[in-house]
């Protein structure tokens, strides 16, 4: 495996991990699913958690442009997973199909904004620290 292929593989793994983590964090802090989770996560952790995921993703990819592109993919994938977790009962039940798909879509859009904006905050924080610590790496 060449170095470039290894980098692509690493980015793919990071994108999958960050998407699952972001969707799981949104699900763990939302009123619909919070009471049903295995590990209780206080709702106040959603913002610092998403900032942390954005920062870790940036550090793991270690390239400004690639990590920005990865964040966009993570936002869409994470929001889709989160929205589907809420809309999941609609796949089996007719009675609540419309309302649950509507709710899942609304929460998915909210998740997209949260993951994108606060992930970007984490990313910018890493870039800023990186620039301060290693000015030549700007």
């Amino acid at each position, binding site marked *: 495996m060449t170095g470039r292929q290894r980098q692509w593989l*690493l980015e793919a*793994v*990071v994108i*999958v*991990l*960050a998407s*699952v*983590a972001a*969707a*799981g*964090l949104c*699900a*763990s802090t939302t009123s*619909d*699913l*919070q*009471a*049903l*989770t*295995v*590990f209780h*996560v206080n709702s106040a952790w959603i913002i610092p958690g998403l900032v*942390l*995921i954005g920062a*870790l*993703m940036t*550090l*793991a990819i*270690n390239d400004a442009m690639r990590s920005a592109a990865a964040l966009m993919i993570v936002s869409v994938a994470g929001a889709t*997973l*989160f929205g*589907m*977790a*809420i809309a*999941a*009962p609609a796949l*089996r*039940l007719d*009675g*609540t199909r419309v309302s*649950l798909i509507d709710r899942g879509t609304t929460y998915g859009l909210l998740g997209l904004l949260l993951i994108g904006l606060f992930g970007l905050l984490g990313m910018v924080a890493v870039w800023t620290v990186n620039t301060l610590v290693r000015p030549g790496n700007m």
Partner: protein
Amino acid sequence: MIVQRVSVVLLAVLAVALGINLLSASGRFVTAHDTYDRIELELTTFQYVAADAPIETTFVARNPTSRAIEVIEIELGLNVGVHRVGGGVARPRAVVPVGEELATPMRLVIYDIDYVQRRDDGALDWRLRGRILVRIDPDIDPEWIPFTVRHLPE
């Protein structure tokens, strides 16, 4: 390089822990909605004697799902046609095991006796509008399930 590896490991730990939360919560959410959808409600007896006497009814809640449910409260509003004439409340607070049923006797009081007496031609169009409060998962709030029953004398 070390920072990169540590970041991937931390992301993996977060993904596993929060992924477990995502899967378990979504699974239980599906089960709760499925349970809500499959609970069977039936009015098995309805004994009307006179307008100034209470109506004896039996309300049955069946649990065909794969988990026990708790029936907390049943509210019934009694209508003749579209006119509300009375009602009743029962608070069984009983757990219905898987595949079993709970029969709750309910006494419905008629408030508007004059109206029922005036309309009582032996074939009153009784309609019961009610709701049942059930707990379908121990970790989530009980949920009201609304229903309507129509009783036409034979």
